[in-house]
C-alpha cells in the first residue's frame, strides 16, 4: 500500500519537476534570444511567445504540486494562468505596435517592412493627408453652391485642420522621441 503511495508520489513529483525544468529551459532560451536577436521586433518574438509558454509550464507544475500534496485547487493560480495566457500576447502586440508607430528602426539585415509597404506609415499618411486637405479646401471654395453643404464643408475642413495640427504635434513628439532613442 505504502509502496503504491510512494510510487504515485514519485510520479507526481516527476511530473512537477519536468514541468518546472521545461519552463526554466524555455525561459533561458527566451533570454538567449533577447541577447542574440538584432532589433526590438525580433526580440518580441523571443520574449512574448516563449516567456508565456515558460511561465505557464512553471505555474502548471506549481498547480499540480499543490493539488496533489495539499489537495488544494488554487483559484488564484488558475486565475493567474488564465490572465497571463490572455494578457501576454496583448501586451506584446501593444508594445510592438507602439514601436512601429513611433518609427523605431528595423535591423539592418531586414529586407522588407510589410506593414509600411502595404498599409503605409503614420508619418507618410500625415503628409498625404496634408496635401489632400489643401486640394479639398481649394475645390470646396470654388464649386459649392448650397449653404448647408458649405457649412458642412467648413466644419469638415475645420476638423481636417484640427487633426492636421494634432498630427503635426504628434510628428514633433515623434521627432523628439527619435532623438531621445538615438541618444539612449
Amino acid at each position, binding site marked *: 500500500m505504502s509502496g503504491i503511495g510512494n510510487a504515485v508520489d514519485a510520479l507526481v513529483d516527476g511530473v512537477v519537476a519536468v514541468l518546472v525544468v521545461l519552463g526554466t529551459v524555455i525561459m*533561458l532560451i527566451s533570454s538567449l534570444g*533577447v541577447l542574440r536577436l538584432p532589433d526590438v521586433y525580433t526580440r518580441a518574438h523571443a520574449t512574448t511567445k516563449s516567456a508565456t509558454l*515558460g511561465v505557464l509550464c512553471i*505555474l502548471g507544475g506549481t498547480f499540480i504540486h499543490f493539488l496533489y*500534496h495539499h489537495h488544494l485547487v488554487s483559484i*488564484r*493560480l488558475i486565475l493567474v494562468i488564465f490572465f497571463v495566457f490572455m494578457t501576454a500576447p496583448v501586451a506584446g502586440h501593444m*508594445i510592438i505596435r507602439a514601436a512601429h508607430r513611433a518609427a523605431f528602426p528595423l535591423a539592418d539585415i531586414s529586407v522588407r517592412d510589410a506593414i509600411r509597404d502595404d498599409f503605409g506609415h503614420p508619418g507618410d499618411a500625415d503628409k498625404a493627408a496634408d496635401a489632400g486637405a489643401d486640394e479639398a479646401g481649394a475645390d470646396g471654395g470654388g464649386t459649392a453652391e448650397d449653404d448647408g453643404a458649405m457649412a458642412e464643408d467648413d466644419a469638415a475642413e475645420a476638423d481636417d485642420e484640427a487633426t492636421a495640427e494634432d498630427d503635426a504635434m504628434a510628428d514633433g513628439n515623434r521627432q523628439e522621441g527619435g532623438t531621445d532613442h538615438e541618444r539612449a
Partner: protein
Amino acid sequence: MMDLLMLACMFGLSLSIVAALYRMFHRESTVADRVLLLDSLSFIIIGIVAILSIWMDTTAFFESIVLIAILAFASTIALSRFVERGVVIVRDRERR
C-alpha cells in the same frame, strides 16, 4: 532531490534575469526594448515566486503572483502608450 532541483531552476531563472538586465542597460537598446524587457522580467519573477512557493511548500505567495501579473499588464499598456505618443491618457476625444 526535489529541493535541489527547485534551487537549480531558480538559479536558471535568475540567470535569465541577468540576461534581461544586461539587454535592458545595453547602450544600443531603445525605449521599446526596455518596455518589452520589463514585461519579460515580470514573467521571470512570476516563475521564480511560483518555484519558491513549491520549494517552501506554502501558498502564501500566490497573492503576490496575482499582483505581479496584473501590475505588469497595466504598466506595459501604460508604457507602450507613452512610447507611442508621449502621453499615457489621451483626453481629446478626436484622437484615438
